[in-house]
């Protein structure tokens, strides 16, 4: 039976899911906007982040929230390592439109199989950070999900402010808008690229870590994340950070509500249908190519 309580609970769940889509998507759009490349291994950094958390909690007995922090930091450095070793040599060489795509697809396959080899195919579970449910006005919400909402909001807003106000953010925007001029005013474009890539991977890891207690970790979890991430990015407009966030929340909310009306197997269909409709009406996405 569809009650108001059910709708609100689903809306809140949708918000949580939407935050995750937003987090994954903003990493992708960050790389596109700054480096003009698409990272097809983004889902795997998501997955690796999840596994770092699992590893920290299960083998080192680290409390989950600290484990999450460690996972995010480790994934950042892994991203930096990958960028310096594999992406960097391709920069400024002919074929930049294609080469990072090819390389990151290769990385994706490599990481998936590496995980499979190391961790095996069984889904691994990660304990909840916070147990328990809170009930307000008859609406029940798990503390874990409230935590997810809170952390994502803080990180996304913090990042937005960082891009707009901090000196590094200025360098990033300059590189994204006019790379040569950025070099002329003293921005080290190569360093910006490396740090941006690392930050993007860190954000993916954050999303995975927050979701891990709910969805568990497995070598292929990156696939769904990447797919939904790309849909969100294109929906919000390639290159628009704000667009990625809004589109993510929109997508998550609509998906969750639709679970009430249809059954849960159809929620992906709903996502794709929305995607097709928006792109037909407005091909450049909700916020076009508006930059940061």
């Amino acid at each position, binding site marked *: 039976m569809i009650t108001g309580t059910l709708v609100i609970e689903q809306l809140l769940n949708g918000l949580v899911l939407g935050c995750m889509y937003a987090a994954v998507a903003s990493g992708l759009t960050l790389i596109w906007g700054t480096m003009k490349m698409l990272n097809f291994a983004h889902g795997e950094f998501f997955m690796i982040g999840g596994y770092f958390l699992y590893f920290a909690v299960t083998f080192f007995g680290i409390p989950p929230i600290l484990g999450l922090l460690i996972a995010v930091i480790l994934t950042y450095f892994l991203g930096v390592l990958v960028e310096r070793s594999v992406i960097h040599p391709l920069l400024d060489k002919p074929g930049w439109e294609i080469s990072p795509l090819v390389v990151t697809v290769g990385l994706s396959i490599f990481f998936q199989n590496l995980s499979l080899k190391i961790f095996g195919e069984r889904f691994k579970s990660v304990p909840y950070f916070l147990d328990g449910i809170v009930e307000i006005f008859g609406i029940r919400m798990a503390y874990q999900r409230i935590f997810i909402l809170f952390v994502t909001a803080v990180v996304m807003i913090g990042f937005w402010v960082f891009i707009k106000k901090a*000196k590094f953010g*200025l*360098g990033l*925007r*300059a590189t994204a*808008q*006019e790379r*040569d*001029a950025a*070099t*002329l*005013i*003293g*921005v*080290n*474009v190569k360093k910006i690229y490396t740090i941006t890539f690392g930050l993007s991977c860190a954000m993916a890891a954050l999303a995975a870590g927050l979701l891990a207690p709910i969805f568990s970790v497995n070598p292929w979890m990156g696939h769904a994340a990447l797919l939904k991430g790309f849909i969100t990015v294109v929906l919000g407009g390639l290159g628009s950070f704000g667009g990625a966030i809004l589109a993510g929340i929109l997508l998550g909310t609509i998906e969750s509500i639709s679970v009430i009306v249809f059954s849960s197997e159809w929620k992906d269909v709903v996502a794709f249908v929305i995607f097709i409709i928006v792109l037909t009406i407005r091909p450049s996405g909700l916020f076009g190519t*508006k*930059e*940061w």
Partner: protein
Amino acid sequence: MLTLNDLDVFYGDAQALWNVTMELRQREIVTLLGSNGAGKTTTLKTVSGLLHPRKGQIRFGDVRLDVVEPSKIVTYGIAHVPEGRKLFPNMTVADNLLAGAYNTESWADRFKTIETIFQIFPVLQVRKKQLAGTLSGGEQQMVAIGRALMSKPSLLMLDEPSLGLAPKMVETIFNVLVDINKKGTTILLIEQNAQIALQIADRGYVMETGKISLEGKAAELMENEHVKKAYLGL
């Protein structure tokens, strides 16, 4: 102050500059003339580090510039106003200007420096919250020059500042350049508009198909038959 010594520059395997040798002395205005594709922009880009010479050296004072990391060149006091302005289109005029002080000691007092830029180009103060991509050509040129001045350079390099601008605007801008030079900044000016460039320059070089073909005092160049025919339309 700045010497280019026997430079060969390539784009991939295509040679663009042959044995280019030039020098600038402190407080001079030197102009580099030539038609489209002659190699003037290539020369400037090589000084800025956006391109690397395959042969030859660039010296700024006693520093060898061609081996310096490109993003550090501005810290030596060299500012480059690129061809086509290359403003940051989705930043405001104010942000574009402030960005000019990014990597130098002038970052700390950038809010003071921007006031002096507004004094040089008052219209920019009016437009300071406007997105740079929406400005007119002349205003964009002012922002580009202003952005370069924010790093308080000792050498200002401009690539075709008169391009696409109405004559009145060109006059305004060139008056500003003369003023900046009087206050102590050395200027290297690339121009297709030889007429106006030679009016404000002390010395000039003429570049043709990647080689320096002529050099001399501005007054001499203005009287040179070849220059008159090819570049002054006389």
